[in-house]
C-alpha cells in the first residue's frame, strides 16, 4: 500500500487573493463614500440637500412673469424687498404633489402673517410649466390657493428655454406623467435676497424652513 499523498492545504497561497479582495473592497468603499457624500446620502434628493447645505448655490437670473404679465429678472424680484424667500416649484394643473406643497405654503403663509414676519420672509412659487401657466392660469391658481400678495408670490418663466437650466440649478427633475401631469421632486428652498440658495428642506420640515429663513433675514 502506498501512503496517500498529503491533502493540499486549501488555505495555502491565499495571501495574494486576500490582498486582492481587500483592495477591491476598499476601492469600492472609497467609490461609494465619494458618491454618497460620505455615506450620508443615498438618493439624489438627500445629496442635493447636503450639497446645498455645505455650499450655497447662486440662483440663475432669468426673466419671470406674474399673473398680470409683469416681467422682471428673478434676481430683482428676490432682492426687491430684502426678504428671505422660501421657494417651491409647481405647475398649476397639478392634482397631486403640488396640492401638498400648496397646503404647506398656505400654513406657512398663516404663520408668517400671525408672527408678523411678512417684511422679513416671503413665499415664492415658481411654475415650471411656462407654456400653460401664464396670465389667467396663474391668477386662478393664486385665488384657489388664497395667496396674499404681500406674502406669497407666484411667477412663471417668460422663456420656455430657461426652464431646464433653472430647474437644474435647483436640482429639480420633472418627468412627464400620464394625463398631461408631471411627476417632480418637491421641497422647500430657502433663498437669500442676494439670490443664494442656502437650504433645501422636505415638505415635512416647514417649521425648520421658516426658522432658517427667519434666522437669515436682515433685521
Amino acid at each position, binding site marked *: 500500500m502506498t501512503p496517500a499523498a498529503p491533502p493540499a492545504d*486549501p488555505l495555502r497561497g491565499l495571501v*495574494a*487573493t486576500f490582498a*486582492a479582495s481587500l483592495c477591491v473592497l476598499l476601492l469600492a468603499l472609497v467609490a461609494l463614500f465619494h*458618491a454618497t457624500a460620505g455615506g450620508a446620502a443615498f*438618493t439624489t434628493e438627500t445629496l442635493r440637500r447636503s450639497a446645498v447645505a455645505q455650499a450655497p448655490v447662486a440662483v440663475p437670473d432669468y426673466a419671470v412673469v406674474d399673473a398680470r404679465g409683469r416681467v422682471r429678472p428673478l434676481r430683482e424680484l428676490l432682492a426687491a424687498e430684502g426678504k428671505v424667500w422660501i421657494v417651491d416649484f409647481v405647475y398649476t394643473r397639478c392634482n397631486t404633489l403640488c396640492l401638498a406643497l400648496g397646503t404647506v405654503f398656505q400654513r406657512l403663509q398663516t404663520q408668517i402673517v400671525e408672527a408678523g414676519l411678512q417684511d422679513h420672509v416671503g413665499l415664492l412659487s415658481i411654475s415650471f410649466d411656462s407654456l400653460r401657466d401664464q396670465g389667467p392660469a396663474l391668477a386662478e391658481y393664486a385665488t384657489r390657493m388664497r395667496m396674499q400678495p404681500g406674502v406669497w408670490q407666484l411667477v412663471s418663466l417668460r422663456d420656455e428655454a430657461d426652464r431646464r437650466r433653472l430647474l437644474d440649478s435647483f436640482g429639480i427633475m420633472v418627468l412627464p406623467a400620464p394625463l398631461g401631469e408631471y411627476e417632480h421632486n418637491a421641497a422647500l428652498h430657502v433663498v437669500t435676497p442676494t439670490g443664494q440658495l442656502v437650504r433645501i428642506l422636505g415638505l415635512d420640515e416647514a417649521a425648520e424652513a421658516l426658522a432658517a429663513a427667519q434666522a437669515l433675514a436682515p433685521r
Partner: protein
Amino acid sequence: MKPQALAAAAATLGALALSLPPGRALIEQSMVWHMLVQMPLLVVAGWWAAAGAPRLGERINRHGLTGFMLAQCITAYWMVPALIDRAVVLPWADAGKLVSLWVAGVALRHGYRQAPLAVQLFFAGYGLPMLAWLGYYLASTDLRLCNAYSLESQMRAGQGLVMLATVLGAAWVLDLLHQHRRRSPLAPI
C-alpha cells in the same frame, strides 16, 4: 464563433442599444428597463464573454474570492438610487455603468467556477437577500427614491428585483444539485 461568444456579443450590443437613442428613451422612462433589462443584460453578457476565456489572475483569485468580491461590489454600487439617477442623467456615469457591470459579469463567472460551496454560500447568502430586500423596499415605500423615475415605475422595478433574486437563488440551487458539488465545503469544484 462559439455560441456563447455570439450570445455575449448579442447581449452586449443589446445593452449598448439601450444607452443610445432611440433605445435610451426606454431606460430614461422606465426603471424596469434600466434595472431589470439593461443591467442584468450587461452582467449576462460579461458572464457569457468569460466562458471560453482562460482563468484570469488565478493567483489572486483562489477559490474565486476576488471574482465574487468584485462582482458583488459593482452590483451593490449600482443599487444606490442616487447612482441610478446619475447614470440616467450623466453620459459619463452611464458609460461607467456599462463597462463596470459587464466586468462584473466576467468577474462573477471567474468567481463562481472556482469557488467552493462555502464561498458560494457566503456571497449568495449575502448578495441575493440584499437584492430581494432592495426590491421589497422599492416596491413597498411611498418615498420616491430616484428623481429620474416615477413612483409607479419604482414599484414595478422593486417587484421585478424580488423576482430576479428568487430566480437567481433557484438557479443557483439547481446548478448545485445538477453538478453534485457537495463533497467538502472547501473542496474546489
